[in-house]
């Protein structure tokens, strides 16, 4: 219940007296003209109603938590450790490099270690993400670098040799960080399952498939916005009908935040994009309470001002719940809150290359706040993120231990939403909610996310924020320890030995090996059938109403390549920008 006016008046008066008395004397004693610290009191959460604004975890408006019992508490200690980032149910976290053989061996080697469980969380190389085969001119130098190279179904068959028996496709969930070429990868998974006699209804997984943020922050888009949205529509209608256990998307704020968006922009732009995807699905005839349960969100990214990040995440829960109820008229309370693992509250971008062990401290602080708002204390990224691709096993070990300390020594996950009721936090949560809705209103007014992205507005806003922040770093208004402060010669560099999880020598010749494999597949397949499949895809692509996924499945079964399919689509859809 909000405080009564006479109580507020008393506090107001007392604050005034404190400011003129105790505070003033302190400032005079210390020679300060301005108070360097803020103070929040019940006056700042004026009008706050507990049931309306905060409520109980797992219930509208979800401010206090997305679940009645946080996901971590349900899973911790059951072999599903959430400590080292996106390790939930996924073998060894987000990884990928080299050829499919290298990845298969990577998974099989790790299998012998105590860290087991679940399906792969696959990083693909840039050519695969951007629809070029490993032998394409633009793929040169990029094959197998930022992830594994996948050109044909054969490559998928090889990777998944590591997942058979009690970890066959009907027993695991796969995570794919893939966007523009999602439907082709999905088609490969379907074709692979079929070969193994597993019906597609049993398949579980999550493709990232968030194409709008690619235009804004990540840069792996292929086709222009509208054909890209058509492809996303295809994912959602196909999975709604044929693959009820497959997630269709992972809507991300993370990348936009990393690219420089403010925390309010990251939340607002994520939700604007989400609304565009949801509207896309509704326009295709899907019902909100049928498809919402197959959508997921990644996270909103973060930053070092962790209390503000925590408050902003609480606000985000409330904002989305309102959108689902009021705008999309969802009737199922289970759909009012986004499906997300949380995490990454301190962000990746604050990690410094200077004295990188400090990054462990940075992310541990973020993970503490995550735990305190009912999200898993995901220690991401491991401290050596800025030192190059591939986190060392030492860094992953320390990340896992830090999470264990937070959960099992500090017992921080034993209390739900411990920050609730804090005058500061509730006031900030309210403020961020308002700011997010205001920005959403602006985007609505310009026609929604599709317009905002297509026109370049959303990306420009992010770039402007990045520049504004850079300016603050250069003037010293924002401090980065070891970067723009504490850089004197007497500061010492600290490092521990680091072991790569990947085999360096395999990376070096991955491109040659993959090109040789691709050549072999092309020789052995039926080129006529491939061409027929490509022709069918080309024709179908011209008709906006046709779902291309069944045609992709047919094509990948004939070992048509990612690049060939995308080449046809490029001809029909055009290229982005």
């Amino acid at each position: 219940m909000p405080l009564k006016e006479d109580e507020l008046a008393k506090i107001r008066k007392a604050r005034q007296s404190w400011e003129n008395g105790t505070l003033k004397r302190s400032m005079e004693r210390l020679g300060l003209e301005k108070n360097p610290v803020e103070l929040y009191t019940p006056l700042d959460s004026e009008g706050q109603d507990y049931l309306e604004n905060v409520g109980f975890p797992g219930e509208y408006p979800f401010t206090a938590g997305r679940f009645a019992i946080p996901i971590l508490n349900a899973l911790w200690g059951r072999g599903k450790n959430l400590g080292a980032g996106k390790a939930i149910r996924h073998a060894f976290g987000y990884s990928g490099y080299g050829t499919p053989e290298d990845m298969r061996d990577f998974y099989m080697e790790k299998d012998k270690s105590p860290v087991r469980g679940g399906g792969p969380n696959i990083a693909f190389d840039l050519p695969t993400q951007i629809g070029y085969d490993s032998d394409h001119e633009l793929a040169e130098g990029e094959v197998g670098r930022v992830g594994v190279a996948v050109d044909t179904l054969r490559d998928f068959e090889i990777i998944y040799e590591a997942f058979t028996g009690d970890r066959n496709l009907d027993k695991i969930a796969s995570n794919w960080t893939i966007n523009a070429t999602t439907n082709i990868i999905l088609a490969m998974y379907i074709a692979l399952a079929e070969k193994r006699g597993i019906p597609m209804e049993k398949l579980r997984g999550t493709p990232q498939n968030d194409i709008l943020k690619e235009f804004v922050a990540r840069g792996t888009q292929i086709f222009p916005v509208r054909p890209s949205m058509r492809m996303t529509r295809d994912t959602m209608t196909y999975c709604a009908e044929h693959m009820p256990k497959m997630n269709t998307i992972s809507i991300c704020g993370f990348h936009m935040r990393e690219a420089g968006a403010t925390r309010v922009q990251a939340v607002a732009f994520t939700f604007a994009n989400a609304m565009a995807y949801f509207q896309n699905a509704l326009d295709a005839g899907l019902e909100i309470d049928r498809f919402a349960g197959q959508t997921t969100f990644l996270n909103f990214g973060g930053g070092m001002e962790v209390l503000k990040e925590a408050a902003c995440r609480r606000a985000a829960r409330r904002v989305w719940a309102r959108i689902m109820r009021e705008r999309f008229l969802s009737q199922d309370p289970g759909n009012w809150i986004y499906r997300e693992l949380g995490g990454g509250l301190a962000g990746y971008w604050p990690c410094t290359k200077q004295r990188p062990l400090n990054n462990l401290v940075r992310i541990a602080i973020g993970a503490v706040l995550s735990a305190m708002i009912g999200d898993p204390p995901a220690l991401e990224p491991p401290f050596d993120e800025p030192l190059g691709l591939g986190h060392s096993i030492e860094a992953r070990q320390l990340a896992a231990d830090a999470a264990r300390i937070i959960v099992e020594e500090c017992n921080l996950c034993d209390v739900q939403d411990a920050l609730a009721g804090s005058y500061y936090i509730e006031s900030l949560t309210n403020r961020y909610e308002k700011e997010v809705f205001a920005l959403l209103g602006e985007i609505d007014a310009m026609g929604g996310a599709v317009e905002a992205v297509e026109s370049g507005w959303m990306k420009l806003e992010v770039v402007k924020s990045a520049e504004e922040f850079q300016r603050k770093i250069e003037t010293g208004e924002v401090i980065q320890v070891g970067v723009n402060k504490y850089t004197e010669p007497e500061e010492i560099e600290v490092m521990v030995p680091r072991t790569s999880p990947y085999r360096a020598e395999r990376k070096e010749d991955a491109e040659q090996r993959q090109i040789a494999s691709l050549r072999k597949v092309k020789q052995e397949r039926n080129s006529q059938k491939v061409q027929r499949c490509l022709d069918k895809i080309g024709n179908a692509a011209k008709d906006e109403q046709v779902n291309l996924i069944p045609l992709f499945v047919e094509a990948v079964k004939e070992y048509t390549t990612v690049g060939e399919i995308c080449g046809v689509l490029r001809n029909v859809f055009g290229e982005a920008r």
Partner: protein
Amino acid sequence: MNEEKTIRVLVAKVGLDGHDKGALLLCSRLRYAGMEVIYTGLRNTVDQVVATAIQEDVDVIGVSILSGSHRPFAEKIIRKMKEKHIEDRLFVMGGVIPDEDIPLLLNMGVAGVFTQSSNFQEITDFIRNNAKAAGCTK
């Protein structure tokens, strides 16, 4: 006397890496410092970058790579610059480049390598001090 010629810089993204925050911030910094900056946008081949460098008559080619493919690209760019007789222009690289690779790049002929631990003032000063020298040989 010594008239200060405006330094012309080509900031380029080669290969398929789509992360452009660093490149965009650099463009804006260099412009603020009075240089003329041309930005290629994403996904350029080596041939395209070198052709643009010649067409725009730049003094500096700056390439940003975060995908780990810096070594093959450095090799190819230097080779192409020699082939097209612009090896006197200043060639610098930036991005996510492990420290252990920097000496290799410098030996190849990359004039300077700037990673996350570099600041924009450092890069601006380096270009200003070294581009003029490179430009004088023209």
